[in-house]
């Protein structure tokens, strides 16, 4: 982010940036930065808080009028409204998952049954939010789940025999988004930590992906190994 500021200014375009990690802005000396004490992933504060967001945008843009350069690092004075990231708010997902019908109660059947159980809640989310972040893989969420889960049995490859790593990541991203949106379809107070704990600790999907991650960490394909090691499990959940 600070690097982009250097490149754009050098090309003649003024910049102002939001800094989520103050120490990085100090080190990289971007021309104008507004440090905000908000959760990673929320540079403009909290959702559904337009007045607050506007104060952040306005303070960041106001640095464009500063004459104190070549480096201005200001601090935004307010915390974002709502729970902090790791707050345990007492939120529980309103959906309970009965065992899958039939004889197959294995991890994949349980995952697919969870997806079916969450479907009305996902629809509720769509109705309330008017949008969804599901759709990266180009597959339906059940197709994405089946595809990702299939890596436990055999890692699919392209025509040159290379493991399909990006399609796995895309499918995983869609399943995560589906659970997150469906689980929080009802408005109410919850933290991002609440939903992470729920997904990774309380769902068949979380358990399946934890097992899969352990396998893929030993993959001979470096990209799959990287995905499993670095970009599946959040550090807050032990990743």
């Amino acid at each position, binding site marked *: 982010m600070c690097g982009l500021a250097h490149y754009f200014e050098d090309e003649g375009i003024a910049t102002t940036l939001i800094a989520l990690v103050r120490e990085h802005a100090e080190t990289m000396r971007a021309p104008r930065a507004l440090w905000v004490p908000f959760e990673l992933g*929320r540079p*403009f504060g909290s959702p559904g808080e*337009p007045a607050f967001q506007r104060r952040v*945008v306005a303070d960041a843009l106001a640095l464009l009028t500063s004459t104190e350069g070549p480096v201005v690092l200001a601090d935004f004075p307010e915390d974002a409204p709502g729970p902090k990231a790791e707050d345990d708010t007492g939120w529980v997902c309103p959906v309970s998952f009965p065992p899958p019908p039939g004889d197959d109660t294995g991890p994949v059947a349980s995952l697919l049954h969870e997806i079916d159980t969450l479907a009305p809640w996902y629809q509720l989310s769509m109705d309330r939010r008017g949008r*969804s972040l599901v759709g990266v893989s180009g597959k339906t969420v059940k197709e994405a789940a089946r595809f990702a889960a299939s890596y436990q049995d055999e890692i699919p490859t392209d025509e040159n025999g290379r493991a399909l790593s990006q399609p796995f990541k895309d499918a995983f991203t869609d399943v995560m988004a589906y659970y997150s949106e469906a689980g929080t379809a009802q408005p109410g107070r919850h933290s991002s930590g609440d939903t992470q704990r729920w997904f990774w600790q309380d769902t068949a999907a979380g358990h399946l992906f934890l097992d899969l991650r352990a396998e893929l960490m030993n993959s001979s394909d470096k990209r799959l190994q990287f995905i499993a090691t670095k970009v599946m499990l*959040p550090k807050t959940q032990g990743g």
Partner: protein
Amino acid sequence: MARMEDLVESEQAHMRELALPTYETTPWMDGPPLSERRVAIVTTAGLGLRGEDAFGIGAADYRVIPADTDSGDILMTHISVNFDRTGFQDDVNVVFPIDRLREMAADGAIGSVAEFHYSFMGATDPAQLEVSARALAGMMREDKVNAVLLSPV
């Protein structure tokens, strides 16, 4: 929460050990008052349009987000899982404050909102973004942009 001491220990260590480029000088562009600024958002949140390829490991390219894009067509494919997505899930403005810029332009607080906005994927080494960023600056100049609001995740 982005106070270093609020992060879990492993995330703190990651943030402290991250290899960051440093720059010998800091370029500084002056400009007109805010009421004459045409503002573009450039984010490193890994945003893109529905149907576009996701950002992959080490991606150094960027996606173009036209200002009139329906928020339902904006997806997030940043490779990291170590930041919150639920805020963006509820409200694009948490990361991509396009509605706030529109309001400010309507109020005269800024001159105008750029026709196009852009996203990189911030897990890539900043030095690897230089070529794309300099090319992007040329496109923004064509759009008469004279202020960039940079948004990380």
